[in-house]
């Protein structure tokens, strides 16, 4: 499984290198120009998952992107279903990682070229001046590792859900292709993974059991009058949420936000099974059924914790 993830990351990385090669990677200015055209292209279609800021035209800063990635990662880990893939965010993130890796390489090569002493690459070098110079490099490397960790964990989590729900994904894809095409839901590489995985799975079912059964019982999902046989995500699973409120923090602009008597702002949700109304106060923490808060989650008004 590790190999798969590495492959995906590697492929995504090489993709972004291909774009970078048009500019001179050794010049900062060129690199930045290059990156901004990349963002503009990708921001032409709207980010479905998280509205990063009020003005959709401007490019989110690296910090915003990172913070959003952390939120998306935590959401993905806690949610019972597979959440949409943040195409734009990930494209930006991966191209930044690529850039940063090249930058680090140049910097460390400079060090090697400049220093003739033997302790060059030793970050704990005895020479204090050397140590000071190495500090940015050290921090940048540590930061890069942290970002890579989040992305790996994020993708691993998504792959495990793709494994789990591969038949379900196939089913919704066949049923309503126009509503939520899988291509939006999964990244290009996840799509490849998903397709081959579900093919293998179906073949296994078929070869081991189904083909030995009477023909009228061979369907993978036989729900004539009874229960569907394909695993769906548990929509009512309880999740821990934190109520965030509108992205811009201007409470008046959110039509579904209500101001209570005590001056607290809240969203009102209804639990259909119990016919119960619940007030979700901003900044509070709740344990809730996933289905009840799914819409708020998609708008980024609550996060899973």
């Amino acid at each position, binding site marked *: 499984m590790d190999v*798969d*993830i590495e492959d995906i990351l590697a492929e995504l990385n090489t993709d972004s290198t291909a774009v970078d090669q048009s500019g001179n990677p050794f010049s900062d200015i060129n690199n930045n120009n290059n990156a901004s055209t990349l963002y503009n292209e990708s921001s032409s279609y709207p980010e479905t998952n998280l509205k990063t800021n009020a003005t959709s035209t401007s490019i989110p800063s*690296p*910090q915003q992107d*990172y*913070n959003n990635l*952390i939120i998306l990662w935590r959401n993905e880990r806690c949610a019972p279903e597979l959440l949409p893939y943040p195409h734009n965010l990930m494209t930006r993130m991966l191209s*930044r*990682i690529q850039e*940063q890796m090249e*930058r680090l390489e*140049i*910097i460390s090569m*400079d060090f090697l070229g*400049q220093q003739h002493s033997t302790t060059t690459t030793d970050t704990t070098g005895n020479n204090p001046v050397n140590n*000071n*110079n190495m*500090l*940015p490099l*050290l*921090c*940048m490397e*540590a*930061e890069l590792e*942290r*970002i890579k*960790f989040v992305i790996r*964990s994020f993708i*691993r*989590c998504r*792959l*495990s859900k793709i*494994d*789990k729900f591969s*038949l379900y994904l196939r089913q919704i894809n066949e049923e309503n292709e126009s509503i939520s095409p899988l291509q939006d839901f999964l990244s290009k590489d996840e799509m490849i993974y998903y397709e081959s995985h579900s093919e293998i*799975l179906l073949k296994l*079912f078929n070869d081991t059991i189904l083909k030995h059964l009477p023909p009228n019982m061979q369907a993978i999902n036989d729900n004539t009058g*009874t*229960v*569907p*046989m394909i*695993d*769906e995500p*548990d*929509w*009512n*699973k*309880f*999740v821990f949420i934190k109520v965030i409120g509108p992205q811009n923090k201007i409470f008046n602009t959110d039509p579904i936000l209500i101001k209570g008597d005590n001056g607290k702002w809240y969203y009102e949700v209804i*639990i259909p*099974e*119990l016919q*119960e109304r*619940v007030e979700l106060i901003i900044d*509070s*923490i*709740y*344990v809730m*059924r996933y289905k009840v808060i799914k819409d708020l989650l998609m708008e980024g008004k609550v996060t899973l*914790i």
Partner: protein
Amino acid sequence: MSLPALLQETFSPEEVQFIVENQKIKIFPRITTNKRRNLSDSNNEGNDDMSRWKMLTMDGRALETMIVMKSTEVTLWLALLLKQQSKCNIIIPEWLTVRGLELMLQYEKRNVDRFSALPWDWLVVSEILFKQAADDFNDPIHELRNRIQDLKEIRQMKVLQGLKYLNESHLQLDNLGILEINELRPFIVTVMDKLRLIHASGQPDEEESDEYGEGNADDVGMGTMLNSDTNMSSSSVPPNGTML
């Protein structure tokens, strides 16, 4: 497979620490990056590149303009990194003093059914700072540790007493820390899910039939009758069982 079962339920303690380390904290730098940069600027171009901070997760300017003993704000992990290189002192947050913790303790004791407004990462931050920045505290650490321990216990007791109010509807848990939530998550979620199923099976059939239909019934006849049962056993039945 791609994500160990343990991590599917909740976050690991290391991951919690990772999340917390993205928070900001104030430091006193012991180095001046500002001046050094100007110097190297005049020296040559290559040097400039080397001392540049180009960060992806934060504003690099805070790092480029560090001045000795002038407080600045950086993310916790970076503060710890600088601390390890003895390049900074961490400014201990106000709540993490004997006085601050004492106030919280009093609040916890006075309000039996509430949690004091400690920061959401209090347990993690205090633990990290005790370990890695022990020399930056003004108060004796063992006293702080005692109070943290007291707080932890008194809050844990409240949580345990609160467990009897678990229901099938929802739960509000204000001011509970991330580590406390993480610890409770598997238990609370499992219990509430079961309560939900028990409650649902007491309801008329039509309402539940499509909500709880996800259990892959091996026996069609049983499926509609015992929804909760098929649900519980669903993990041991193929297709899940064979692949995972």
